[in-house]
């Protein structure tokens, strides 16, 4: 395998590992849940994306066959990460009384959907 593609794949793997590490560090280090949410949603998702691209390039350049499963996993994770973050934030707002008093106003007639009587 050419030297250049080897360097490319190895650096993609290391970049992915770095971002996964940063995401987990943010999860362990930051003081409250809304701040912790930023690490896993952004850094971890980019880390896994970079790692899956490295894997796709590896099997393309070494095995010579094009594997699209990684692409499917990447797209799936990028689509679902915001949804899980949103659900966790909603659950947190509903459970924490301190968080609720810190929310700004909506600017409309009704409140936020999680706390509204009729919303879901």
């Amino acid at each position, binding site marked *: 395998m050419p030297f250049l593609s080897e360097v490319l794949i190895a650096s993609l793997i290391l970049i992915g590992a770095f971002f996964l590490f940063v995401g987990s560090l943010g999860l362990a280090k930051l003081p409250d849940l809304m701040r912790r*949410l930023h690490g896993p949603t*952004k850094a971890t998702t980019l880390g896994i994306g970079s790692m899956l691209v490295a894997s796709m390039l590896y099997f393309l350049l070494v095995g010579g066959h094009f594997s699209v499963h990684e692409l*499917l996993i990447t797209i799936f994770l990028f689509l679902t990460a915001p949804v899980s973050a*949103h659900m966790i934030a909603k659950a947190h707002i509903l459970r924490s009384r301190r968080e609720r008093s810190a929310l700004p106003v*909506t600017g409309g007639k009704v409140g936020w959907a999680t706390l509204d009587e009729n919303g879901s």
Partner: protein
Amino acid sequence: MLTRLVPHPLLTLLIAVVWVLLNNDVSIAQAVIGLVLGLLIPKATSAYWPGRPRMRAPLVVIEYLLIVLWDIVVSNVQVAYLILFRRGDRLRTRYISVPLVLTTPEAITVLAGTITMTPGTVTADVSADGCALLVHCLETDDPEATIARIKTRYEQRLKRIFE
């Protein structure tokens, strides 16, 4: 007639493509099976899909995707810097409320997902009438600038795509 046979043409195409990708095998046989599934599944479940979102400007979608991908990379470098080199309790975090111009649920969903994936912001909630988004910023000096950035960079393009 055609709309009853194919209630959601984009969904049909999406199911066929995902089927081919799941099998990891680009051939005519798999494409035919995928198309059959793509015709049967939306028809069987069409009672649960009353609305039919329309895309006005398909070319803007590509521009939007490229912008979002670029912003994801930039935002990750920023967030990594904040996590590694700043004390957690020194970060100036706050909630902001972003008023919405968009009205269709699909456009608001895409905007909320985009906000979560891009610089230092997470969508936490939507107002019960769908007129505002609750956004949490990790580090911000100027909430007005963040709101203006969200509105000009993402919302206007989504308005051109969906409405």
